[in-house]
């Protein structure tokens, strides 16, 4: 029963939750929250089930669901997961659950807030499990639109400007990506034009891929389109402002999951469909990602608003993901996907913690805070652990994944790898500086009334920390899982490099 429908349920549960909330009276906030949390908890349980039951020895796309949609255009409703998407689904459900839990504090128009949150999650799940590019793109857009509204209404700092910029950027990126996708669709990759990703992959791998010239034209479109949301330098500027303006749960979804859609789409669609194009253009990514890492880190060093620090640090960390992707080795790509997972959880933790005290202090400026450890020790310790995870301390998943990226990338891009290792020094600098400015030293007496997270309020933070530590100490289950998804991709790309894919 569950075997055949599990992927449909990932879409259905958040959608149905949104629908149910739509018909609930706005006043019954606690019921709405409970419903959302329950829906999230169910998807979390399902995601664990999925990851555990995914057959690693068989690999490939599993738990497939196929239904005809518009056969004349080659569109079908087709879902399936491989090792990479399993990890991403798990990430989404973890952040979803934590986000639903921390949003208990949302008071104004809670009903609409939860509807949008659930729609967003449905969209994200959709991207991760779709095997049909039409639906892939549909879900991709479905995930972006609620973000606009979430920031626009519930946001803070400079929210009109931030939402506008975010939307323009993501829409522009999406349009460029759409152009690329349509070019692939009409390029005669398969005998009948189809959006079926599996059919397209089969064509590529059997030596019937697009001509190299064509790939070299189309790949940059997909790359730029998807890398906007990744975000790759210099397309990153929507992200820190967007993070800063968004309410906690939206920042969490945004930095934790939404940004991963970009790198996921590159891995899932752009690279396997256009392997020769990828081989041509990825060295460029390897250069740009260093700007992400070093430049993003340095800009973070000069921020005074905590959310901007974390925002720029996210773009810095995404540089490691892009480096891992560009380096094209089994280890580096595996590390990149693992880092997408680890960074998603870590950054969700960061934004949820900042949100917790921002609701009380109404400031995130480092100069105004200070000494908070004394007043809110639980949040302080969690924040410190988050910072340690983020700066790559062993014991947290971020270290294991960054280690894989670094070790895996050395062979191909030694200079970039050295810069990436130096990025760890910069990362430690801005994070320790932030921890010190906000939590250590003497406390401003103004903050004596702050209350700490107690009882059930601690659940989301503990959940995220547990996930980080579990996979930091025992990375092998998720690394093995991701490996099964990465292996065929690496094979295709190495074949493309060696000129073994026909033409």
């Amino acid at each position, binding site marked *: 029963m569950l075997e055949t429908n599990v992927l449909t349920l990932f879409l259905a549960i958040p959608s149905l939750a949104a629908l149910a909330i739509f018909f609930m009276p706005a006043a019954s906030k606690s019921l709405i929250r409970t419903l959302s949390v329950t829906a999230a908890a169910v998807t979390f349980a399902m995601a664990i089930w999925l990851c555990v039951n995914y057959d690693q020895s068989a690999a490939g796309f599993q738990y497939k669901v196929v239904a005809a949609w518009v056969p004349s255009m080659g569109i079908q409703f087709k879902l399936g997961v491989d090792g990479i998407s399993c990890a991403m689904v798990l990430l989404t459900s973890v952040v979803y659950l934590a986000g639903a839990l921390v949003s208990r504090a949302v008071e104004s128009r809670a009903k609409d807030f939860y509807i949008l949150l659930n729609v967003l999650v449905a969209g994200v799940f959709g991207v991760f499990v779709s095997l049909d590019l039409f639906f892939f793109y549909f879900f991709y857009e479905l995930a972006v639109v609620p973000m606009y509204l979430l920031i626009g209404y519930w946001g803070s700092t400079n929210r009109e400007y931030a939402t506008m910029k975010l939307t323009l950027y993501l829409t522009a990126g999406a349009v460029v990506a759409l152009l690329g996708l349509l070019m692939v669709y009409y390029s005669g990759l398969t005998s009948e034009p189809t959006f079926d990703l599996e059919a397209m992959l089969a064509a590529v791998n059997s030596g019937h891929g697009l001509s190299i010239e064509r790939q070299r034209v189309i790949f940059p479109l997909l790359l730029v389109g998807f890398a906007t949301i990744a975000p790759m330098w210099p397309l990153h500027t929507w992200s820190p402002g967007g993070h800063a303006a968004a309410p906690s749960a939206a920042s969490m979804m945004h930095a934790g999951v939404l940004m991963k859609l970009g790198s996921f789409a590159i891995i899932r669609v752009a690279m396997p469909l256009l392997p020769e194009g990828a081989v041509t253009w990825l060295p460029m990514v390897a250069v740009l990602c260093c700007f992400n890492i070093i430049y993003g880190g340095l800009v973070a060093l000069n921020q005074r608003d905590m959310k901007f620090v974390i925002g720029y640090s996210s773009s810095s960390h995404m540089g490691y993901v892009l480096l891992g992707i560009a380096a094209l080795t089994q280890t580096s790509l595996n*590390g990149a996907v693992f880092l997408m997972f680890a960074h998603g959880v870590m950054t969700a933790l960061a934004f949820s913690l900042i949100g917790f005290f921002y609701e009380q202090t109404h400031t995130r400026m480092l100069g105004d805070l200070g000494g908070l450890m004394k007043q809110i020790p639980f949040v302080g310790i969690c924040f410190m652990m988050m910072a*340690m995870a983020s700066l790559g301390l062993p014991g947290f998943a971020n270290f294991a994944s960054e280690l894989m990226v670094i070790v895996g990338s050395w062979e191909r891009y030694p200079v970039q*790898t050295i810069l990436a*290792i130096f990025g760890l020094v910069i990362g430690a600098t801005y994070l320790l500086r932030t921890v010190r400015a906000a939590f*250590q*030293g003497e406390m401003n007496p103004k903050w004596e009334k702050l209350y700490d997270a107690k009882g059930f309020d601690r659940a989301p933070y503990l959940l995220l920390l547990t996930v980080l530590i579990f996979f930091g100490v025992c990375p092998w289950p998720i690394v093995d899982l991701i490996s099964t998804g990465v292996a065929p991709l690496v094979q295709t790309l190495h074949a493309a490099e060696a000129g073994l894919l026909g033409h």
Partner: protein
Amino acid sequence: MFDFGPWHILFLPLVSAALILFGLHRSKAVSAGLAIGVVWVGFAICAFKLLPQVMENGAGWFAHDAVTWMRAGDITFSYGTLVDGLSTIMMLVVLGVGGLIHIYAVGYMKGDPGFARFFGCLSLFMFSMLGIVLADNFFQIFIHWELVGVSSYLLIGFYYKKPSASAAGNKAFLTNRVGDFGFMIGILMLFYATGTANFREMAAVVNQGGFLDTVRFQVGGAHGWTMTNEHFLWVAGALTLMGVMGKSAQFPLHVWLPDAMEGPTPVSALIHAATMVAAGVFLLARIFFIYLPSETAMSIVAHLGMFTAFFAATIATTQFDIKRILAFSTLSQLGYMVMAIGLNGTDVAMYHLTTHAFFKALLFLGAGSVIHAVHTNDIREMGALFKKLPITSTVFLIGTLALCGVPPLSGFWSKDGILHLTQHPPVWGDDVFIRWLPTITAVLTSYYMFRLVFLTFFGKPRYHGHPHESSPSMWAPMVVLCVFAIISGPVLFTQEVIDGFRSVTRPLGAGDFEHIHGDAHTILHSLLIFGVGAGAAFAAFSRRWVDPEVVKRALGPVHRLFDNRWYIDDFYAWIVEHVQQNFARLCDLFDRVVVIGILVNGSAWTTRAVGALAARYQSGQVRTYALLFVAGVAALLALNL
């Protein structure tokens, strides 16, 4: 009996740390008891199980166990334990000295609100440190290298409300990160060149004759640089050495260690004197095989250690904070150990590491006891404490004599072993500096230590209040350490014992040490060094035959140089303030003005006209968007069909 082994030694402290930090911290007694218990259980396993095996089987013996931590493609990261002579002696030092300091801390930290947190962090440190000692591969040692760094950060910044403490914690962490930057690159180079991260396998590859002749290295795969073989080994060795510079506080990454004295004194004794800072020396002994084939690499190591030893000793002569003097003395002694390794003396370096752990921990605990009694760190506000603190003063004095290398105390045997090396150096170290600076440093050591002793324990009282001797839980560990500081000569460490404590990865016939058999010449030599240094201190600070102020003025700029720690800290502060921060500001400005201002807003202005039109259709409702989106895609498709 249960089959206890290295895994238990390693993980029991982690269990203890987790239990204390996440649950037991409400009960102080249970926390302290647990933390102390696991250390002594570990010590017992090591002393009664591993040590007999080492003693029985001699230098080549080892026990190895490993699990796969993660595997991707053809690269496997494993996690294991490697027990051999080297790790056994290091474990005995870490657990033995550590265990005594744990007991001392019970008295020292009494009444502190963070008592349980303190013991939790100590347990975390023990786990991290033992992981370095037992590591069987480079990636594992790097993991624990970082974990040790964070334990040290947490303990230095233990009094986190004090701005200077949290600043010192950050400084320690970041300085170490700079070292780890080079360390990681060195690891990557070695890993790819030899095809393994495992110490024994790597040693087998490097030690097998002809490694240097046969391989020309492609650093960073086919896309990197080609290096000649000798070149490769010394570059990789020097980068790896950066990790050592960070952890063992060698010049120029030494700046964090004196500031680290902001932590509670037991931490200074355990982490910043006896064990953690010795990790770098331990690592050098473990991977000696990388340095030995390259004379350039050996020469770098030797001169680095020599300079650090001298440099730190000069600074120690001008300081007034009792813990800082000891910290600079630690730097200086670590320099001796690093130099000894560079002069092909791993055995004597490890021997000095061991004796130093005893007497330096003793000195720090003594300093803690003094600080506890007079509530100040400034030796100008002490004086005449000998009568008030008889036990502390006696053991402190013995520790000082051991440090100064007075026969027959332990320091004499290990330190004069090193000085002996400098008088008979290998070709790469045969220069005037190696021959003379270490001896001058030894004179300086006696001078600054006796300056400290005279100002603290003798002369006129300048303290406030009524100092009294500390509790037995504090002085008992000091007495035990004192006994070891006395007997750690050939009585305890016979030639056979020292030969047993070797790394299995060590190339055959390298780095041997033979006890200098206390002949009249060495004893006289050593006493002469001691006499000159201590005599100068006696003249200036006890009898006042020479006024120190006059000497200060006479030395002028030299004294200012030493007093300001050779301006290294100021230089770094300048770099951070002016180079790093300005660079960060520049990037931030670029982001605001160029990327956001011109590129983004510029394109926004051009699209505004279009936007104004589109705004009419922006109802802000999801379903409208979804509808428009689907309609748009359909239209696009229809157009193309």
